[in-house]
């Protein structure tokens, strides 16, 4: 008889996969956190910006005389003060404009003692405009006789991208079924609860300190410097707690140099903070696009080709928005086995608001198209969409036409898990059969999936991170890292990893990550990269520290370092888990011994990914991941209201690190995606935003959040920290087309231009049901049999 096994002390309890609270949660929940918006510096002035309030105009005359004379006003700046200080991705922007190219163009700026005085000063500035004919859609901007927005960009042409792979003509000939649609993803905006804010202060050596919400502090210096005509090295970036960023702070926007210009002019700190209305008008949008997509397959449901011809509404200036084709083409070419690809995109300047990066970065728009076309093709082939997806799904080790190496690929597992959990195939059949039965309320279920980079994206020269880790005499750990915290939870992840590696309590880890003069380089929070990259950096630094400590402890204890480990605040013996000496004692002895040493290690981690390159054929991320969403909805066919009853999510997360953070990211990402799908819509008429407020811009609220059934698939990524992959964009990307496919399942209608508002849905259902000859539009499902 064997003895009953007891829990062996040699098996180490792991924190990986546990639920760990964000360190700043108590302060945020109780209102103690001081956001940048709350900050007041001694002597600080308030900066206010005069916006053009018209989409396209010549500035004939500006008179700031009366404003300058108003008591309490310290500076008034106009375009004349910054004429040549161009900045931006293609140097087409300037902090204060000499010509109006969009409604929110910054015409003048004031620094005054109070906000009231600054506002009054703005009213005293007289500007005479000569309005010009405008360009309000990319199609209009591309016309030969279109008004020119920038002299330097003839034909209103901004960025263009192209990727081709395989013989398209042959693939088309081999395709028995082709879907061909035009999708029109719309303008939405980030709606950060903390509005845009920057505080700038120059010292007398000409060095600028800027407190800002940026999510990429190091390249930010490089981007801000030309707007001020100073050297990037003379900028110190401090990042106080922020109320959201979601991509909106991944570039320099004019209010930041404006704060700095006013600070330089007045010699005092200047704060510029937007009101909610200014935030709606002046912060970047998600890139609006017109996507003409075609996908082909054989009679037995094997994909043959996919083409996308994309026209982007660049808006008035070029920020990150028009660069999204870099990601759009990865999904177009690499989601499911697509042997032949033809992708091209052209961004056209318009007098509309301009787009920046936004969680999902182009993949929200692309997946809106690809996932609906997958659903349409499955119906034409007449097989269950699940089976159609499975048939074309890649397996581990496959490489996409753009050379994305799907080393660990869990697409099949994601599909099967979500479909089983939601009873997808049975419900889909049942609901489709009831579609034309009598009854006002219809149920529908829809499946969508996508792929996204999950190990950074090497669009800069480096995608790396620097980490410094130090320990004090009491075994308290400080991690000094470039990784920015914008609410996504890297603070919890880093704390967890340090505690895991060094066997210290979570509360004994402090993070310093908000001062560019202190923390080492990082490319920024974007591309679902921070847990992956900073997680690796932290783990490497912690392991260096651990090796140093165990070596020292081994000497003290006359043991071999391989036999030792760090657990629960002590050095323990590996074999039986016995605690040999307190960690803090080891650290003190190391510090105070004859040959003293301090634990302070540095690490620079650069992921093994390849630079994007002009040809776009490179393994640009250290990992890729998939997610499948299945949405179940009820549609009121008379009012067009969609109620989302449940969403089942299966996502390849590599490995769960902080379960609570992961759940939070998926819930939050879904909320953004649901708003995109159902209600959020910037109403831009002739370049003017008509709904610059939460009353008319319908951000979803708590009652709209459906119950979620989350399934985390652990594919154990070889490159990721403990096997983890980046996770935070896919939840936003996949949900909208899942609902669109559910809407089709319920009612037989398809919406090509989000959001699927009650009004659009009701109209589409009405048109589908209208009797023949009544002028009703045919459903736009266009199938051609070769």
């Amino acid at each position, binding site marked *: 008889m064997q003895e009953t096994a007891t829990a062996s002390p040699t098996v180490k309890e792991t924190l990986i996969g546990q639920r760990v609270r964000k360190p700043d949660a108590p302060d945020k929940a109780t209102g103690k956190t001081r956001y940048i918006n709350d900050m007041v510096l001694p002597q600080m002035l308030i900066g206010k910006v005069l916006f053009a309030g018209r989409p396209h105009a010549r500035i004939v005359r500006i008179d700031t005389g009366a404003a300058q004379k108003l008591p309490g006003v310290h500076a008034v700046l106009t375009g004349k003060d910054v004429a040549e200080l161009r900045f931006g991705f293609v140097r087409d922007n300037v902090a204060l404009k000499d010509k109006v190219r969009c409604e929110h163009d910054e015409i003048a700026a004031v620094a005054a003692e109070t906000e009231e005085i600054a506002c009054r000063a703005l009213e005293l500035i007289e500007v005479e405009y000569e309005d010009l004919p405008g360009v309000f859609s990319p199609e209009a901007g591309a016309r030969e006789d279109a008004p020119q927005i920038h002299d330097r960009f003839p034909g209103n042409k901004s960025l263009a991208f192209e990727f081709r792979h395989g013989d398209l003509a042959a693939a088309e000939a081999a395709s028995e079924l082709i879907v061909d649609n035009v999708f029109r993803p719309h303008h939405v905006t980030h709606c950060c609860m903390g509005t845009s804010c920057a505080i700038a202060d120059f010292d007398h050596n000409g060095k600028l300190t800027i407190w800002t919400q940026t999510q990429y502090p190091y390249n930010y210096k490089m981007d801000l410097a030309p707007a001020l005509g100073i050297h990037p090295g003379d900028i110190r970036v401090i990042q106080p707690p922020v109320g959201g960023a979601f991509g909106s702070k991944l570039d320099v926007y004019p209010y930041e140099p404006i704060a700095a210009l006013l600070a330089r002019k007045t010699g005092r700190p200047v704060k510029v903070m937007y009101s909610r209305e200014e935030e709606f008008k002046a912060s970047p949008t998600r890139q609006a696009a017109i996507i003409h997509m075609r996908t082909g397959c054989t009679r037995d449901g094997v994909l043959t080709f996919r083409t996308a011809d994309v026209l982007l509404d660049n808006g008035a200036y070029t920020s990150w928005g028009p660069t999204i084709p870099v990601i759009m083409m990865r999904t177009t070419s690499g989601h499911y086995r697509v042997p032949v690809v033809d992708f091209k995109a052209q961004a056209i300047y318009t007098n509309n608001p301009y787009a920046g990066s936004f969680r999902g970065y182009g993949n929200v728009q692309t997946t809106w198209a690809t996932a609906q076309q997958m659903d349409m093709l499955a119906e034409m082939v007449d097989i269950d969409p699940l089976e159609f997806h499975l048939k074309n799904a890649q397996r581990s080790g496959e490489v996409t036409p753009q050379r994305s190496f799907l080393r660990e690929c869990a697409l099949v597992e994601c599909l099967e898990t979500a479909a089983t959990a939601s009873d997808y195939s049975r419900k889909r059949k049942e609901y489709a059969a009831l579609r034309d039965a009598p009854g006002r309320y219809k149920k529908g279920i829809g499946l969508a999936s996508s792929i996204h980079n999950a190990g950074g994206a090497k669009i800069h020269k480096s995608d790396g991170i620097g980490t410094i880790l130090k320990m004090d005499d009491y075994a308290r750990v400080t991690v000094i890292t470039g990784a920015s915290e914008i609410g996504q939870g890297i603070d919890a992840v880093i704390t967890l990893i340090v505690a895991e590696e060094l066997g210290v309590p979570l509360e004994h880890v402090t993070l310093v990550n908000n001062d560019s003069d202190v923390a080492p380089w990082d490319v920024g929070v974007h591309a679902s990269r921070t847990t992956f990259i900073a997680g690796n950096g932290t783990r490497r630094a912690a392991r260096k520290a651990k090796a140093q400590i165990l070596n020292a402890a081994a000497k003290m204890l006359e043991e071999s370092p391989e036999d030792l480990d760090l657990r629960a605040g002590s050095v323990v013996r590996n074999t039986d888990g016995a605690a040999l000496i307190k960690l803090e004692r080891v650290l003190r002895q190391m510090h105070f011994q004859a040959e003293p040493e301090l634990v302070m290690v540095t690490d620079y981690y650069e992921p093994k990914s390849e630079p994007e390159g002009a040809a776009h054929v490179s393994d640009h991320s250290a990992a890729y991941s998939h997610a499948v969403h299945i949405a179940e909805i009820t549609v009121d066919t008379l009012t067009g209201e969609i109620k989302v009853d449940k969403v089942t999510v299966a996502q390849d997360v590599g490995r769960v690190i902080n379960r609570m953070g992961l759940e939070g990211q998926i819930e939050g990402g879904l909320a953004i995606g649901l708003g995109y799908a159902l209600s959020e819509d910037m109403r831009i008429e002739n370049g003017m935003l008509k709904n610059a407020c939460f009353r008319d811009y319908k951000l979803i609220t708590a009652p709209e959040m459906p119950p979620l059934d989350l399934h985390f698939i652990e594919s154990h990524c070889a490159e990721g920290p403990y096997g983890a992959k980046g996770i935070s964009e896919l939840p936003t990307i996949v949900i909208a087309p899942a609902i669109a496919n559910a809407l089709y399942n319920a009612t037989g209608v398809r919406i090509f231009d989000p959001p699927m508002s009650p*009004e659009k849905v009701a109209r589409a259902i009405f048109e589908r049901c209208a009797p023949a000859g009544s002028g009703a539009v045919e459903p736009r499902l266009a199938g051609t049999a070769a």
Partner: protein
Amino acid sequence: MPVMPDFELLRPDSAEAAVALHASRPASRYLAGGTDLLPNLRRGLADTATVIDLGGIAELAGIRVDADRVHIGAGTTLAALAAHPGIAAELPALAQAALAVAGPTHRESATLGGNLCLDTRCRYYNQSTPWREANHYCMKLEGDVCRVAPKSKRCYAAFSGDVAPALLALDAEVDIVGTNGRRTLALAEFYHDDGMRWLALDRGELLAAVRVPLAPGWSSGYEKLRIRGAIDFPLSGVAVALARDGERLAGLRIACTGVSSRPERIEGLDALVGQPLDDAALAQLEKLVLRGIQAMETTTASVPYRRKATPILARRLVTRLWTEAA
């Protein structure tokens, strides 16, 4: 102006004192919960030198249920109204409508009086001064032309309070205090069909209370069309009070909000009374609702949609109440 303008704040302790203060100050406004007035002040929609806070007037507080009627002080918060067990049981339309307003934190301070006196709303009006300037103002404030109906001589801004239609369907009346004493009006007479002058209150008059008759045998309800489940004004709201006698309709009152410059009592419904509520009756009902409303381009949702959806909402609610009354 995004910043709050300066004003003098007064806090009288009786309705008479409030009315007298109002009469003695030119640009004065009553403040109840402030959830409508304060955002409007910040947006520069109201030229206001004096704000008279009604919060100190005891008479405006409280709900009293008598044998045949409920008396509700104008200062009652919507949260209190929705939570009152007697109202939820006897006048469900009123409780449902109160609960449909804004979000929980708004309802904690928002009052019944403020809801009934709510300023009319329009996408060209409820905007900041810079926005309205950039969009060339409109007739309701500072401009000459109506942006919604440029040839119109009147403003079509929509009355968008949720509670008024419920009270109209329940046949409520209102008590008013003015410098010349007190008067009582049927709620239907409290409103004008004019986006710029929608209340039948004379200068300085104050709404003191609402009285709702209890009608045994009647049931009621409120349905609201909106894009999201909270913090959303009605694109259209419908309140119904209905009495059923076996297979016949014994009484029916419908009122709508968000689709005209006043809350609208739907006319002509008497023709359906005494009849069974069959498909023909429902179709007739939809027609009458459509005829009674005048949705204009005052919201971001289109006119055709709101015109189409309102009768459908009414039908949904009437059918539900009819079935439940069986």
